[in-house]
């Protein structure tokens, strides 16, 4: 597998220098910090993020047009936030000309397909100003999170302060300081089936993509992927938004990212191959043509 990490110009380990952002962000606060900077600089007029929803830990996509709104959407929600569903509305009633969006690798694929083939996205493609991707091994339906947290981890979902997948485990932290970890073999069956045909781990098609894997706790691995990403990243670093370290100097580094990317892609390629002979002489559909 040659290109499991996609094309990129630079890769660093980084974290935001803004304490407030770091406080509740998932890892190095890369996403929130970048959007806040881009908003201030006029690189974007607003960003589509996963805001708080009606139930605890159930995200609701929202168009954030201020730093406060960005802060309200910090942190990873391990269930589906259909952020792309706002990509057109952001340019309509919200009045954005330059839209930022954060999303999983599949959502980045959706964005790029939509820029090339905007069947129902009139006047949207040239308004996508900054697409930030987050690494993603898999995602879950909301009910899976309910069952994992409430049943397996034995915690009340509304008391949970953070969830995280790392070091081979699913971690649940509560407001009162409890920490529960579940082995990933418990979580596997709860995964969203659509994730099993996914061939992208590190958001190859984002302008900038980021995740925790590869960097120490509290830090993030950042891939700057194209010219647009490079411009924004360079400016943000120059403005003092981030502390950075060369990725070669941090542990566990790119090796782990590469390994996990390979594992995901290989496993899912098998699933796709299996779909071809799923029934008796009947195949399941292959989306990649």
């Amino acid at each position, binding site marked *: 597998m040659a290109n499991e990490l996609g094309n990129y110009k630079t890769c660093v380990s980084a974290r935001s220098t803004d304490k407030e952002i770091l406080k509740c962000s998932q890892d190095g606060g890369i996403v929130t910090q970048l959007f806040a900077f881009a908003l201030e600089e006029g690189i974007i007029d607003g960003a589509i993020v996963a805001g708080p929803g009606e139930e605890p830990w159930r995200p609701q*996509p929202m168009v954030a047009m201020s730093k406060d709104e960005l802060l309200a959407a910090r942190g990873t929600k391990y269930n589906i936030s259909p952020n792309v569903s706002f990509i057109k509305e952001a340019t309509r009633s919200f009045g954005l000309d330059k839209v930022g969006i954060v999303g999983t690798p599949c959502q980045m694929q959706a964005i790029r397909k939509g820029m090339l083939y905007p069947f129902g996205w009139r006047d949207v493609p040239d308004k996508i100003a900054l697409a930030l991707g987050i690494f993603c091994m898999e995602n879950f339906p909301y009910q899976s999170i309910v069952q994992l947290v409430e049943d397996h981890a034995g915690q009340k979902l509304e008391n949970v302060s953070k969830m995280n997948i790392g070091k081979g485990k699913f971690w649940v932290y509560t407001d009162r300081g409890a920490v529960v970890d579940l082995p990933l073999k418990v979580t596997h069956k709860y995964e*969203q089936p659509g994730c099993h045909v996914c061939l992208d781990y590190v958001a190859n098609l984002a302008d900038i993509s980021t995740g925790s894997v590869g960097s120490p706790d509290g830090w993030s691995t950042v891939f700057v992927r194209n010219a647009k990403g490079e411009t924004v990243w360079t400016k943000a670093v120059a403005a003092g938004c981030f502390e950075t370290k060369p990725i070669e100097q941090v542990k566990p580094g790119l090796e782990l990212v590469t390994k996990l990317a390979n594992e995901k892609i290989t496993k899912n390629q098998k699933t796709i191959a299996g779909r071809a002979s799923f029934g008796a002489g009947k195949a399941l559909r292959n989306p990649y043509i």
Partner: protein
Amino acid sequence: MGLLGLLSKLFHKSGSSAKSDTGAVKMVESKRKEEKSVADKITVGHVHMSGCTGCLVSLADNYGGLLTILDRYADLVYGLTLADVRHIPKMDVALVEGSCCINDKCSVDEIKETREKAAVVVAVGGCACYGNITRFCRGGQQNQPQHESFLPIGDLIKVDVYIPGCAPTPQMIRNVCVMAYLLLKGNAEQKALATSYLKPLMDLAAKGTEACFCNLMTEVINQGLCMGCGSCAAACPVRAITHEYGKPQGQRDLCIKCGACYAQCPRSFYSFDVVNNYEAILGAINGALQ
């Protein structure tokens, strides 16, 4: 990596899209200078069947880009709304809008004649591709109560390329026009680029003449492929799709059967070859229109 190699050869540069832009402009301009500019153009017609002209308005909504397309790439040889030509001439590309009323002899003759006269037939918009709102027609209205049966043009003639949506977007119509130009007038590499871009749209045309929110259910969700991105909801022109707990919910009493949601879904068709090169391809299209 076939396409990437092709593209970088095409524009003599790889890397930043800005460079590709100028490459594309040069490509197009030098080509224009070599041959006479008029001979260089393709001929395009707009055939209006039972549609609302919204598709044509969408073409016109390329604003300055429409003028550029007409200056450099395409001569509009037919289109009752825009030009005085009264009978369908021979043409390279026919952009057909609207479905065909099979109870109206004129319409049936016209769509057949379009197929005879055009090298490439593009079904523009939900009505031509899938019937769209005309699927609901059931006749009985004055002054022609017998006008009852409307078919997507693909049920009467072979259609080469589909552009679903209602209205289809100016950008999609523009992209197809530029790619059709490259396909018909370009060199081998440009033809290859155009073919790979147009292939999914040809596959849609070959796939069938029915579309609805139901395609997301039957061909994406039921097939275990939906990952909840939200592209479909953003595409729907009548707000028939919301997301409930991450997955699309279609209000089927609102759906007009335009086909935009399924075509927009990254799990309906997705070519790594094409999408991975989004910057170069968009650069080429934008460059061509500078």
